């Protein structure tokens, strides 16, 4: 495996925290084992809150929600542990797809016959698991499939005469090479779509 800087946002429910915590830790470990980075490691803070019996009503939910949305925007991939199938997981799954992030929804409950099974698509993958080993393997496979290497990628393409002529003329006029012109065009399009 190469040198990757893939950032992964991991989210889950704190509702049944003691039940879900080992699985959430297994996900985060699988992310690190795949040479990726957990964008916002909230698990230790949640563990400490749970140990100290912190009350939910004392929590700043606006800050947590905004941090989660920001983490989705800045991450390359999103993993949603949705066994509890709560509001927050639905909201974050939709948001991840909206920002075109490949998203893995994993759950210990069967999804067939439930709303959650209908959200799968080009960007959303849904998998059921029952053991930590199975969970780790699913996460590792998802990251491997969706990792973008850190270094630049070689890309070859066929140009028609018209495009080639345009690139050649623009390169001559601007002093930029043809690849640079194409990259700038694509970057502008990426900005426009944001």
């Amino acid at each position, binding site marked *: 495996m190469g040198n990757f800087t893939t950032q992964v946002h991991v989210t889950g429910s704190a509702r049944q925290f003691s039940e879900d915590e080992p699985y959430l830790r297994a996900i985060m470990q699988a992310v690190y084992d795949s040479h990726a980075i957990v964008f916002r490691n909230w698990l230790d803070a949640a563990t400490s809150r749970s140990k100290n019996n912190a009350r939910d009503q004392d929590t*700043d*939910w606006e800050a947590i929600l905004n941090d989660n949305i920001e983490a989705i925007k800045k991450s390359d991939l999103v993993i949603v542990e949705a066994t509890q199938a709560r*509001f927050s997981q639905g909201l974050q799954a939709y948001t991840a797809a909206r920002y075109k992030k490949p998203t893995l929804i994993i759950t210990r409950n069967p999804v067939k016959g439930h709303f959650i*099974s209908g959200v799968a698509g080009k960007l959303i993958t849904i998998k059921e698991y029952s053991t930590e080993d199975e969970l780790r393997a699913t996460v590792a496979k998802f990251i491997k499939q969706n990792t973008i290497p850190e270094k630049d990628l070689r890309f070859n393409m066929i140009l028609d005469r018209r495009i080639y002529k345009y690139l050649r003329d623009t390169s001559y006029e601007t002093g930029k090479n043809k690849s640079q012109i194409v990259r700038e065009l694509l970057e502008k399009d990426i900005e426009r779509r944001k």
Partner: protein
Amino acid sequence: MIVHLAGSLREPEVDAAYLRQIIEIIHDHGAVLAHNWLEATLARKKQDITIPDWTPYVEANIDAIKRSDVVIADLTHYTFAHGYIVAAALQYKKPILAVSRNPIDSHTASGISNTLFTYKHYVGNTDLRQIVDTFLTKNTVHTKDLRFNMFLTRQIFKYLEETSRETGKSRSEIIRALVKRKAEENHG
């Protein structure tokens, strides 16, 4: 006005009664539902029929949100589906009324600071009626066209005059087309 109603039927009879009341208030306001799913879902629940493929239902919900002027969601059971639908409604910039019999003050939904999102806790029929009534009155979008007056700078006036002459379109038409294009760009 078109309203999309979202909710769940975990306790079918109880939930359906509240959802029916919301529908009644919507109709009292002369508004219509984008997608009337309640009775069909209730019948399915009673006959214990499961849906093999939820994809068309999820798509129908998103489509209903896009077509609606406002969204009302009963978050009492606070499910994945509710979060998904609220996020979609916010993306499409629809005013949302979220109501719940269980307070959500200590949950993620209480952290939504978007001005389009209104949350109200209800305990029974009387306060539910009042909450939905107030929301619909405040957010009514009239179906007929609305008159709108504005001041124009000399430069804009001149531009509109020229464009009107060139294209044969009225000035209002030019402004409406501009605003419509911008709105479509923003909504993707």
